[in-house]
């Protein structure tokens, strides 16, 4: 673009403000829990108190007597197939004869007030025969362990990777066992939505979700209705982070709405939300690295176990990531990986930001430090030495065919300025324990830790990963206006800002309207796997190109001239002469709909795990500086600096926001976030007992953004949202190890791990 061209703001590379920002700061933005209909009733869910039980009988008599109750539904009221699930249809919409985890939905109540509905639900008498629960995933595959599902053993997926020498040896061998606790997405806006019956047997559902079309398919199956009769519209989403990939109240509200003939609102309370969505898989990892004395990795072995809980959800894909990416962004010639996901009667686990890579990263980064120490090498340089570069092969034999700046990333974070060394009298608020005044600096030790990791972008292993965009260009009040319509969910990441930026850039129009997200346009795919800017961005770009071609075709016909182009809002001939304005040519609207796919990926070989499983890799590194009160076990993260290659920053401010947010969530897992499950029972379903980082926990962050364009991706973009969640936690854990000298082979690191 030349400087003489009129440059409108809000194109790619700018950081325009999000179009929904003003509504969000004034309180006018309607989240799913704000929806209201004048004659609506409220739906609530009765959930199983047991992790494993047979349902002998359900007695509704007392509950139905509660005044104000309009319906109570159980499995026998499901008109279609009582089965949902992202990868396996193994999850009943309502428990049918058996419950497999604490919190499984058993019955639904609709009433004129949520309190009435709750009181009625409490009067439902469920006769449970409590069964032994499978609660230790490490013995889930033993022959004498009962099956969680009568028709299937407890193995959800078993992935193996075999590459190079099957029995390699190396002069230096290090190994470890690591354990990662169960993390929650803890989005702030609870699961909620409104189902409105259309009076003709169909229903409209307004809901907060990550993928409208995959929800629609599941709801249709349970209701026994075709997609025309089940229409979904995205309601305001109060955060997602993977926790809205599976259904929550979607089917339930629709069942109640169709049954009562009334609009039904459902909104989970916070404690219920801990049972209402899947969590990040807890994992048990056993790793071994063999290396030369000079630090080069010769081989790596890993055995990774994910607890999938009661239902499959996205466990197969999480195992896919944990297995294929679980050794980190390193060049390793000889590889032996076994990754498994199993069924238990623990809470169901599935998607969360970082998806299978987060757990593995704690293990491979701890072991990399161990290896560096063993051979007396610098912890940063050993990563730089072994780090992938473009053209290397991954452990599945795939060529990394765009930038892989591992060495640059890790050295970049090392070279960023460090926070000042503590000296003299310190402000207690800056110390571990903060204003609770637990130390004046005695017993406080500083540590620094590093980590570098990578993540696949988009859906992998042969999945048909596409998005659909409809772009319309028309003249409104003499001005050209573009409307962009996709079903891709905005969850706070800023996709709608990017959609506008792409339209402005491609079509040269200033005004871009973002159509509400709904199922009247084709699927946008999931808002997950850091894929929307890439895939829906690609679709919007392609739709804009189609619109532009149509406009120019029309202009050529009308003006009888060839070789026209669009320049801002002007139609320009080859010689540069302006022949018409866009508004003159747009007598009728031009509209194009495009389905866009990234390069295909392929399934991996079931015996060797070899194959081109992924479409793109995204790399990031972190350096954490912590102060640890070694007497009390309290940790203060003093700085959390990061470098990440984003390919191209289409909206630089939004990129930084994603990196900050993702880093905080990874830090949370390292320090404080764990759903504690004992014998299949969740012990801490509240924000008092499940802690997430507050503004005081958020450390200063220096963020270095590298832009090595990926030639295979639209505009060169690389997914941004997940990598920071993967490398931040291991860096924090490493820093605590450095401060304390403790091995710390489990996260979150609790005070007692530090003090004893």
């Amino acid at each position, binding site marked *: 673009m030349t400087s003489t061209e009129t440059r409108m703001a809000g194109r790619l590379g700018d950081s325009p403000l999000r179009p929904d920002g003003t509504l969000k700061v004034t309180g006018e933005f309607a989240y799913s829990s704000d929806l209201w209909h004048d004659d609506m009733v409220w739906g609530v869910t009765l959930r199983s108190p047991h992790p494993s039980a047979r349902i002998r009988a359900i007695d509704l008599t007392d509950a139905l007597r509660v005044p104000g109750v309009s319906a109570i539904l159980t499995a026998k009221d499901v008109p279609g197939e009582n089965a949902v699930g992202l990868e396996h249809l193994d999850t009943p919409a309502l428990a049918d004869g058996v419950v497999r985890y604490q919190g499984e939905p058993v019955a639904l109540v609709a009433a004129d007030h949520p309190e009435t509905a709750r009181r009625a639900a409490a009067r439902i008498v469920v006769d449970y025969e409590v069964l032994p629960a499978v609660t230790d995933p490490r013995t889930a595959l033993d022959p004498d362990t009962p099956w969680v599902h009568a028709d299937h053993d407890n193995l959800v997926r078993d992935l193996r990777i075999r590459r190079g020498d099957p029995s390699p040896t190396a002069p230096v061998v290090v190994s470890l066992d690591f354990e990662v606790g169960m993390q929650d997405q803890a989005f702030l806006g609870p699961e909620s939505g409104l189902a409105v019956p259309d009076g003709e047997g169909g229903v409209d559902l307004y809901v907060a979700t990550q993928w409208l079309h995959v929800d629609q398919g599941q709801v249709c199956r349970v209701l026994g209705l075709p997609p025309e009769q089940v229409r979904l519209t995205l309601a305001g989403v109060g955060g997602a982070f993977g926790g809205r990939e599976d259904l929550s109240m979607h089917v339930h509200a629709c069942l109640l709405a169709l049954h009562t003939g009334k609009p039904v609102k459902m909104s989970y309370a916070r404690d219920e939300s801990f049972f209402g969505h899947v969590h990040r898989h807890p994992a048990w990892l056993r790793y071994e690295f063999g290396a030369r004395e000079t630090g080069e990795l010769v081989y790596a072995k890993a055995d990774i176990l994910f607890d999938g809980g009661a239902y499959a959800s996205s466990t197969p894909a999480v195992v896919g990531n944990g297995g294929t990416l679980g050794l980190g962004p390193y060049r390793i010639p000889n590889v032996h990986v076994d990754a498994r996901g199993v069924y238990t009667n623990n809470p169901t686990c599935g998607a969360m930001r970082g998806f299978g890579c987060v757990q593995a990263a704690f293990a491979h980064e701890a072991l990399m430090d161990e290896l560096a120490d063993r051979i007396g090498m610098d912890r940063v340089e050993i990563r730089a030495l072994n780090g992938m570069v473009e053209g290397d092969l991954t452990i599945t034999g795939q060529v990394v065919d765009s930038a892989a700046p591992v060495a640059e990333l890790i050295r970049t974070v090392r070279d960023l300025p460090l926070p000042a060394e503590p000296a003299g009298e310190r402000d207690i608020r800056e110390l571990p324990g903060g204003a609770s005044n637990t130390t004046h600096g005695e017993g406080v030790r500083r540590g620094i830790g590093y980590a570098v990791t990578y993540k696949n972008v988009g859906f992998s292993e042969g999945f048909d990963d596409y998005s659909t965009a409809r772009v319309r260009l028309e003249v409104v009040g003499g001005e050209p206006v573009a409307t962009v319509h996709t079903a891709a969910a905005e969850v706070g990441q800023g996709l709608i800002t990017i959609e506008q930026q792409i339209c402005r850039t491609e079509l040269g129009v200033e005004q871009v309207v973002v159509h509400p997200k709904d199922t009247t346009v084709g699927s946008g795919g999931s808002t997950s796997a850091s894929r929307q800017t890439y895939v829906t961005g690609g679709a919007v770009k392609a739709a804009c190109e189609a619109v532009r071609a149509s406009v120019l075709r029309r202009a050529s016909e009308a003006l009888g001239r060839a070789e026209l182009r669009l320049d801002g809002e002007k139609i320009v001939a080859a010689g540069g002469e302006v022949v018409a304005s866009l508004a003159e040519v747009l007598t009728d609207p031009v509209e194009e709909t495009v389905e866009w796919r990234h390069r295909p990926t392929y399934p991996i070989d079931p015996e060797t795990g070899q194959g081109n499983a992924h479409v793109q890799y995204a790399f990031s590194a972190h350096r954490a500086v912590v102060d640890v009160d070694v007497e009390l076990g309290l940790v203060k993260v003093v700085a959390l600096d990061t470098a990440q290659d984003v390919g191209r920053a289409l909206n630089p401010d939004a990129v930084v926001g994603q990196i900050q947010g993702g880093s905080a969530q990874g830090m949370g897992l390292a320090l404080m976030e764990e759903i504690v499950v004992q014998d299949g029972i969740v012990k801490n379903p509240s924000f*008092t007992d499940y802690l997430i980082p507050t*503004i005081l926990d958020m450390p200063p962050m220096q963020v270095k953004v590298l832009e090595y364009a990926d030639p295979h991706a639209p505009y060169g973009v690389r997914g941004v949202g997940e990598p920071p969640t993967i490398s931040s936690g291991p860096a924090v854990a490493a820093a605590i190890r450095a401060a304390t000298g403790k091995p710390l082979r489990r996260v979150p690191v609790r005070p007692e791990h530090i003090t004893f």
Partner: protein
Amino acid sequence: MDITLEVNGETRHLSIDPRVTLLDALRERLGITGPKKGCDRGQCGACTVHVDGRPVLACLTLAATVREPVRTVEGLAADGRPHPVQQAFAEQDALQCGFCTSGQVMSAVAAVEQEVADVREFMSGNLCRCAAYPNIVAAVEQARSTKESADARV
């Protein structure tokens, strides 16, 4: 019981159960949904409103006990213009999903009005899962300097 609430300058009469929280009274009876229900247990700050200028958690306040005027995020704008704190939150992009934002804004307004010394300490009851914290701090800084220059002009 019958109660009267003054919300955002309007007097509203309500007949409610004495156990109804201010948050439910606002959201479900008066249709004022700016204050959010993130936990209903005083743990997240999303429901923060002002009672007589003081930030309170509406989910922990019984509506029937409220005598003084209530201000919610919807009541901050003056003359059709957003409050400087709201302006600052939008301009600094101090949000991602925005679910925490009405609560953050109400706490931030109090922080600016009371000229608190330690903004982060003051705001630590407002969780943001998107961790837009750096921009939240920047927004409060911006609103503070807007206020200081306005005060200096008076």
